[in-house]
C-alpha cells in the first residue's frame, strides 16, 4: 500500500523514518549502514500531522513525503502480496 505521509528522525547510530500508509497504518524504516531507501511513489511533501490519526512518537522528526494510490482488495496477486502477518 502506498504511503500517505512520512516523518524522519536521526539518532547517533540509527536513522528512522515513519511513513503513513493509506489505510492509516504506520511503517517505520530503520537505517544503520545505508541511507534510508527512497519510498516508492514519493512525490509530494505532506505534513504527517495532517493525516488524521496520531502516529508514534516522533520527537524532532521532520515530516517529509509522499503519496501514491495503490491498495486493492480481493484475491488477485496484488492482494496476495499484501497483508503482512505471521
Amino acid at each position: 500500500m502506498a504511503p500517505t505521509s512520512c516523518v524522519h528522525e536521526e539518532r547517533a547510530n540509527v536513522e528512522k523514518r515513519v511513513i503513513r500508509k493509506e489505510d492509516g497504518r504506520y511503517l517505520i524504516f530503520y537505517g544503520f549502514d545505508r541511507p534510508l531507501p527512497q519510498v516508492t511513489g514519493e512525490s509530494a511533501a505532506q505534513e504527517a500531522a495532517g493525516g488524521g490519526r496520531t502516529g508514534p512518537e516522533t520527537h524532532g522528526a521532520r515530516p517529509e513525503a509522499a503519496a501514491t494510490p495503490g491498495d486493492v482488495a480481493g484475491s488477485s496477486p496484488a492482494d496476495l502480496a499484501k497483508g503482512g502477518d505471521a
Partner: protein
Amino acid sequence: MSEMRWHPLLRQWVVTATHRQDRTYKPPKEYCPLCPTAPGAYPTEVPAPEYEIVVFENRFPSFRPEPPSPDVEGTSLYPVRPAKGVCEVVLYSQDHNKTLREMPLRHIERLVEVWTDRYIELGLREEIEYVLIFENKGEAVGVTLHHPHGQIYAFPFIPPIPKAELDAADEHRRKTGRCVLCDIVDEESKGPREIWRDEFFSAYVPFFARYPYEVHIAVREHLPSLAEMSAAHRVSLARAIKTVGVAYDHLFGFSLPYMMVMHQKPTDGKEHPGAHFHVEFYPLNRTADKLKYLAGCESGAGTFITDMAPETQAQRLREALERGKDACE
C-alpha cells in the same frame, strides 16, 4: 469482530479477532508481502526497493489503537472490552531466505536496538501495560508467512504468563529478599543445564523445562527490560540469540522451528521490582520427526509432561553447538 472477552473461570482475557481468519496464508515467494517492492512489481507491505529493518502495524491485528466497539454487550458475568492496543510486525531483513541466526551478528545487534526502541515507544502509550516481543519460526508453530520476521503485541493488560512470573517474583522477594530470576541464573550457572554464557547473559535449559529443548536466555545482572541495557548488553544479547539458534539448527540438521518470547518489565507505570529481562525459546520437536503436542494434560490441566530430562537436552544442545561453532560468528 475484535474484542476482549473475560474468562471468569481462568480469570483472564480472551481476544476474539474474527478478521484474522482471512489473513494471508503461505503465499509463494514471488508474492511475499514482506519483501521489498521491486521496481514495476506489485506493491508489497514495504514501499521501497530495499530496506535494512522495518516495523509496521499488522494488517490483521488482534489489538488496534482505535478498536471497534465490541459486537456483544458485556455483563457482570461476562465483561467485554474493546481490544485496544497495538500489533506490529518486525521485518528482520529484506532477505527472504535468511533466518535470524543466519544473519550477521552485527545485524542482530541492530535488531536488538530496534526491539529496544519499540519497547520504549509502545510502552510510553497510556493504554499499554505490557509489550511482548516474540517470534514464531517455522510452519510447525503456525507461521503463515515465511519471510523472517517477528511480532510485537502491545497489550492493554499484563498477560497471564508474565503476570504469574511477576507474582512469583514478588513472593520470592518477600520470602528471601532476592530476585527469583537472579537466583535461577546463579543456580543454572553451576549446573549441567547451562549451554552458553558470557559476561552479561546466560543461556540454559531450565530445571523446569516444559517444551523439548526449551532454552532461556537471561541477563546475569538484575535488569528489568531492554531499556536499561547498555550497548555491551545488546551486543551480548545478540550473540546469545545467535548462539542458541546455531545450537538449534545443528541439533537435528535442519532449521528448527520455535517460538521465542521476551519477558520484561510491564509498562503500566508500576515498580515491578521482580521484573528481570529474559528470553524464552519453545521448540516443538522432541525428535527430528516427532513433535510435542500440547494435548489433554498440557491444554486441559496446565501441567506439562516432558519426555526427556532437561540435563540430557542441555547436553545435546552443547554438542550441537560444538558441531556448529563456526557458524556463531
